[in-house]
């Protein structure tokens, strides 16, 4: 932590100007006053500038960290234009121009693989966006519960899954749904099935399963924002609605929901701009030999071919395109938001 630099910055201007002033007896008083004023201003400007740069120096170490870990990696995009094979340094690798980008669309096998990955990415993001209203609904339902202790208890319990890692989610899934897991044992003990159902080791309904895990983890947490929003709604609106004879459902429909929609739209737009960024943790832990076809989203695919198959250049090319498209989406969504709501989200 850099903390010692800025001490005693401002108090450094000396007072040797008075001598000069006193010696000049011929100048009129007005002239003297003007000159003194200008000198004072200059002195202030200088010390203010020094002071402001000294303040800046304090944050330089953090700017350097940001530079190292956010800006420097961008130079790694260079690798997309080379045929980079890890032990050989980049300087000795062959420059191949746009070969990797062409390969993505020209090689039928590669095209099919990337096509499937894109479909998966779109499906998972699309499903998540389609269900993004669920936290809103849950927040409204929770808010309608009268007993405060019960509301708080449910809120605490349902936000819990948000705080565990995807590895632990997978561990939970394994304990519950593997062929020797709780659900299968239960069904077998009840003689409902003879063969364990393969919840994890199969490619059936992969998108749906991933969606459900996502909801399990995120709905309770997502509702907190809306609950915060509800508590901020002006009570007079409800009173006015009651005076107009609105029952509880009508109050929800005509007061609560419209008041929460702005928050909802901001979150919706953020998730649209993150359309290609599903992250890889969830899909990585759930992936296995059986379900690769429908579980590989872009982030996971980049990892699999980059770290798994050592095709660093192709993986870089893909993730570079992904980042560019993401930034494009963000700009588009931000523009849309400005046009429609008069507010930018970034």
């Amino acid at each position, binding site marked *: 932590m850099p903390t010692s630099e800025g001490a005693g910055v401002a108090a450094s201007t000396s007072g040797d100007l008075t001598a000069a002033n006193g010696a000049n007896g011929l100048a009129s008083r007005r002239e003297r006053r003007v000159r003194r004023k200008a000198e004072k201003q200059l002195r202030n400007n200088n010390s203010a500038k020094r002071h402001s740069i000294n303040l800046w120096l304090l944050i330089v170490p953090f700017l350097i960290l940001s530079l*190292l870990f956010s800006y420097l990696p961008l130079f*790694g995009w260079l690798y997309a234009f080379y045929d980079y094979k890890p032990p050989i340094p980049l300087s000795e690798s062959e420059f191949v121009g746009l070969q990797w980008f062409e390969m993505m669309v020209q090689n039928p096998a590669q095209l099919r693989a990337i096509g499937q990955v894109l479909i998966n990415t779109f499906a998972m993001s699309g499903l998540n966006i389609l269900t993004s209203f669920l936290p809103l609904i849950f927040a409204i339902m929770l808010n309608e519960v009268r007993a405060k202790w019960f509301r708080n208890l449910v809120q605490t319990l349902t936000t819990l899954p948000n705080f565990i890692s995807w590895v632990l989610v997978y561990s939970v899934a394994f304990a519950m749904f593997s062929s*020797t897991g709780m659900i299968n044992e239960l069904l077998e003990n009840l003689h409902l099935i003879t063969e364990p159902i393969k919840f994890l080791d199969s490619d059936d309904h992969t998108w749906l399963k991933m969606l459900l895990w996502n909801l399990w983890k995120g709905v309770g947490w997502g509702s907190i924002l809306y609950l915060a929003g*509800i508590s901020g709604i002006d009570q007079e609106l409800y009173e006015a609605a009651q005076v107009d004879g609105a029952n509880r459902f009508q109050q929800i429909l005509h007061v609560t929901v419209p008041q929460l929609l702005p928050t909802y739209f901001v979150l919706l737009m953020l998730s649209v701009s993150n359309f290609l960024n599903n992250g890889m943790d969830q899909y990585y832990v759930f992936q296995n030999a059986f379900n690769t076809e429908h579980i590989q989203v872009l982030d996971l695919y980049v990892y699999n071919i980059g770290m798994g198959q050592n095709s660093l250049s192709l993986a870089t090319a893909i*993730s570079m395109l992904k*980042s560019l498209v993401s930034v494009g989406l963000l700009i588009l969504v931000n523009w849309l938001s400005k046009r429609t709501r008069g507010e930018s989200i970034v």
Partner: protein
Amino acid sequence: MSRKIKQGVAPALRRTKGEEVFNVFNIIFCIVFAFVCVYPFYYLIINSISDNAASAAGDVNWLPQGIHWENYKQVFALDGLSTAAFVSLARTVIGTVLTVAASAFLGFMFTQKKMWHRQLWYRVIVITMYFNAGLIPMFITMKNLGLTNNFWVYILPAIVQPFNIILVKTFVESIPASLQEAAEMDGAGTLTVFWKIVLPMMTPILATVGIFSAVGQWNSFQDTLVYMTDSKLYSLQYLLYTYINQASSLAASVRASGGTAINVAALATQQTPTSIRMTVSVIVVLPILFVYPFFQRFFVKGMMLGAVKG
């Protein structure tokens, strides 16, 4: 949280039949959802302390049976577990302290209008929230910086977090400016103002940032996966993943720590891979289960502060 939607006009008198049905349905739904969220954790815990044979037969669903702590003893003796626990703990503590300190300081500094080109530097940092180079360029950079197989890869990239800085900055801006001005009139420099005036007031927002950061560090899995090959630097999450996914590695660990052949045979009848998996899971999740209820109100508050923009 204060939710003040208590209808002003005696609600009990106005309840219709439809509302009654809705109330009942609503409460049932809340109970079911809360149960679904919590039961898996309960299941892991009761199975980790139950008789392993009963657990393997799927008989332990509601109450633990034949409680014993043998699983925990065995798991703590596993190769690598204590190292991984130490790594996870160290990165959580160091990472959280540094992130909180940096967020507090930067969040404050970016409110100081006197700073040279304040807006520019603020944007330089905030923009990084919206784009990243991608996994592979990041990996290559870390490798070139000598941070692969290095503990500091867990810490350094996580120090400057744009989102936290925005949270803190928004918070500081809500503090009356006259407080700072009064201190400056009395001759306090910027750092004194930060240390003596602003920092003590930041507690709620720093608690939020701290919890998010601690949970993030404790839960992080991907950085071990990408940057670490040295098993001494594995995090608990990664170790758990290997235990779940590779029965063979689990068996090897049990054997390695078991020693003699008799031990191995004894272990085979007592500790099943399932019981060990569940036990490790409990160890990984326990800190969060303990800490979570106490801090819940903090991050609820923090979310509300963060929601201001939305």
